[in-house]
């Protein structure tokens, strides 16, 4: 059975192609303005990598914030459930997942069978998400990829607010005016993201081993400060951004999720909404 797991996030769309439980290929690309089209494009790309086309797919399972507008999906599952399954398959001994994506962050407790024990997710606030790092990179005229390595060179990280992206931005502007070394500001920014998520996760508790997923897990600065706060080594499943998509594909044949009436003819701008019903 050839299955696509499609995770449409705020920043990127990801697809994992799985055949009979084995990951064949994956693709990641920016979500952009046309959500459903991005989901289709990333799926076509992932399929091309393993020599298949959309017509070959037996089943599609979508997740992520735009899971309900993936017009070629058979069912939608929340990303919290999918992340747990994806990580469990890759690293079965993981009991806690920290997931930081473009617009949200989550801490998920995973049970030994890969199901979710408990979770906590950020409210409508960009502090503690990838967007926070993007805004700060923009202020400091750095690329997002440069930020992590620079943060590790600091010996004196600046103290930056972890409660609000806008406040933090003004703090960085003030620090720059005071000629604070760039590496100290960047380290302070990374520490602020890590601290925000770390505090939130204490709501559900941390149990070893701990995995870090989502696009921000590729940032070695955030990983470093998270390890420092947790006082433990964190495992990064590879590649960290596709754990939700992988989990979605692996949950295709289960009762988990809500069915979507498949509509291949829908508007490619992704504005078509398909009614859901619970999987029986």
């Amino acid at each position, binding site marked *: 059975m050839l299955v696509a797991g499609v995770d449409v996030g705020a920043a990127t769309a990801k697809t994992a192609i799985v055949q009979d439980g084995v990951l064949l290929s994956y693709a990641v690309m920016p979500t952009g303005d046309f959500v459903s089209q991005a989901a289709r494009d990333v799926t076509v790309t992932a399929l091309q990598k393993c020599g298949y086309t959309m017509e070959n797919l037996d089943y599609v399972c979508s997740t992520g914030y735009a899971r309900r507008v993936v017009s070629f999906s058979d069912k939608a*599952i929340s990303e919290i459930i999918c992340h747990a399954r994806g990580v469990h398959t890759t690293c079965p001994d993981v009991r806690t997942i920290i997931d930081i994506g473009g617009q949200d962050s989550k801490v998920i407790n995973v049970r030994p069978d890969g199901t979710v*024990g*408990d979770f906590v997710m950020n409210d409508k606030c960009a502090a503690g998400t990838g967007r926070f790092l993007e805004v700060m990179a923009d202020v400091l005229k750095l690329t997002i990829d440069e930020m992590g390595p620079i943060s590790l060179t600091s010996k004196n990280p600046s103290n930056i607010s972890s409660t609000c992206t806008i406040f933090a931005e003004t703090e960085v502007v003030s620090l720059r005016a005071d000629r604070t070394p760039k590496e100290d500001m960047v380290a302070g920014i990374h520490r602020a993201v890590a601290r925000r998520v770390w505090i939130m996760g204490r*709501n559900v508790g941390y149990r070893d081993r701990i995995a870090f997923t989502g696009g921000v897990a590729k940032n070695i600065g955030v990983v470093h400060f998270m390890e420092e706060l947790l006082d433990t080594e964190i495992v990064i499943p590879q590649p960290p951004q596709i754990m939700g998509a992988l989990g979605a594909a692996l949950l295709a044949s289960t009762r988990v999720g809500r069915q979507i009436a498949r509509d291949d003819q829908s508007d490619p701008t992704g504005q078509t909404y398909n009614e859901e019903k619970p999987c029986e």
Partner: protein
Amino acid sequence: MYYDHLFQMCGYEIEDIRLEAPRIEKLLAKLKLDNEEAIKHCEEVTQRNFDVSLQGVRGMLRVYMQETLDYSLAGEERELVVHIIRPAGGIEAQLLTEVEKGTGGKIWARSSIQGVQIILGNIFDVINPLIEIGEKLGQSAGRGHCSEYQIYAGALDQGILPVPDVSLCTGYFCDQSPIADQLLAEMFGYETIEVDGSLAFEWGEWPNFDQRNIEYPANCYKRAFAELEEKYGVKVTEEHVIAATNNQGALAMAYMNLARTMFKADPQPISQADMALAFYLYAANPIYLDQTIAAFKVLAKEIRQRAKEGVGVVPKGAPRVFVTLRHITDMAPIKLIEELGLAVPFMMMDAIHPGQMAPSGFPNDPWARMMEAYYRVPHFSDQRGVLDWWQHWAETFDMDGWIHLNPIMCRPWASPALMSRHNFRERGVDMPYLYLEADGWDTRFYSAGAMRTRVESFAEILRMRKEEKQAALLAAHELEVKAPQPVALPGSWIQAATAMGVTVETTADLTLEMVAGVASMMPEMLEALTPEMLLAMPPDALAVLPKEYLDRLDPEFQAKQAARLAAHEPEVKEPQPVALPASWIQAATAMGVTVETTADLTLEMVAGVASMMPKMLGALTPEMLLAMPPDALAVLPKDYLQGLDPELQAKLAKRTSG
């Protein structure tokens, strides 16, 4: 007329609409909804929020609509408008309506703000624009005290509600209310009379309060009413207080009966959005008391009918969640919870806690009794009491999880969620928990998409847990038939026991003290136990294994272990319901409640009979008493119980404690 259909949805007959047409048209003009297109939208909104195929729902909407018409037009129809915003309910609100009734309609004296908001938000869909006007008037987002005051300010500004002649502004629920009220009074030019409160409850003071915390607001009320009489000639007497207390009692009884019908039904017969209409009528105390109780009665009948037919808004056997807050104008969160397959049989204040039924500390002072009854709902007094309350109901109604809807903009009710959750865990309540921030009015305070993700994930977790629980019960049945044989213990355990002067050889020799001792002093020895040994351990020894150790074990084993423990829990046989005496059935009918057997008795009902009609207890036979639900049994007066046969007393005590 273009509004006929909408008002029919709200329980009006065509003749009533014709009679009320001038008033209806005035209201629609004030709301700028006096055209067909706007009313079509209102019809859609109404249908999205409520099940208007239910006659009971229509009956309740009519009461709300009538209250809205009365309030909106009070400035032009009455000689004096006396208003109270906070609290928008309780005996105090009934008290004002009693005063109004006594003046033959000359004055308007009510606390209708919540009821009006139900209509403005859920029918006319004008809440967010009013909030925005409130913001423009100086109550900006995050600094608006609460949405209720923003809406009130917006409605005054737009002339939707009349500027009162005088407002009783109270500080005994929220310390910010009198400030907001007085600022609005300055802005719109009306008089205020203050009713203060100490708000100095100690942690754990609920339900038996320091006398001063009750007497102070009670005396403030007396002083405020003296001022009202002096300045406006409106006289409020003790008789008004007693009548208000009785009205509130009748409303509570009728509402609790309705709520009980909901707890018992599976699948959940109607949406909690519909029940919100009933709740806020019970809480907000309308002047149309008889119509309200009649609508409750009709709705109870419809709920029972749906339950009988197996009709529900969620699937049968759906996980049951306890939700901590009822929203007033934003029904989307509760609709979402139900849409995602979670049953919500119980919300917020849907039952009377035994703590509320304790004898009054002020039997001879109706004013103090009024305040005591108010504060005995712990949400108005002591946060520790709220936690006790939540725990009690979550356990009593066998909930699978709880959703903490935290009203972040409400100063008295926004609770420290993380600390509350830790407190729950310390109490041993290990129930899946979901925290959601929402305001109750203002839909801009949360992201609908993020809320959906959380509720959907939570629903999956609860469904999985429920399936595991059922599988464990099935396995328990199998294990009961096939008890495991003793298994030889590891050498390390035998040696350790010998060193302590105890001889053990197999799992059958293990005692709970031994296992508990190993778990606390030498936890590493637990690692030597195999799944076969664990399953062959005596159930009492198995029960003391540490949770963190069990959590690490294979899930299949965990299910078997749970099953083995479940198999050894003593089976409790529930007595069969017994028909009630005719005097009880007649008395209940007179109060708008239908009862037939002991199974229909609620603690509120029994407590009500015990306090108001104690002679009726004499009609109960031993069989009836033994068949009564334990919570109802628990509120029978001590002196009555002491007069019963000692053997029966012992049986009843066992049933209550069990």
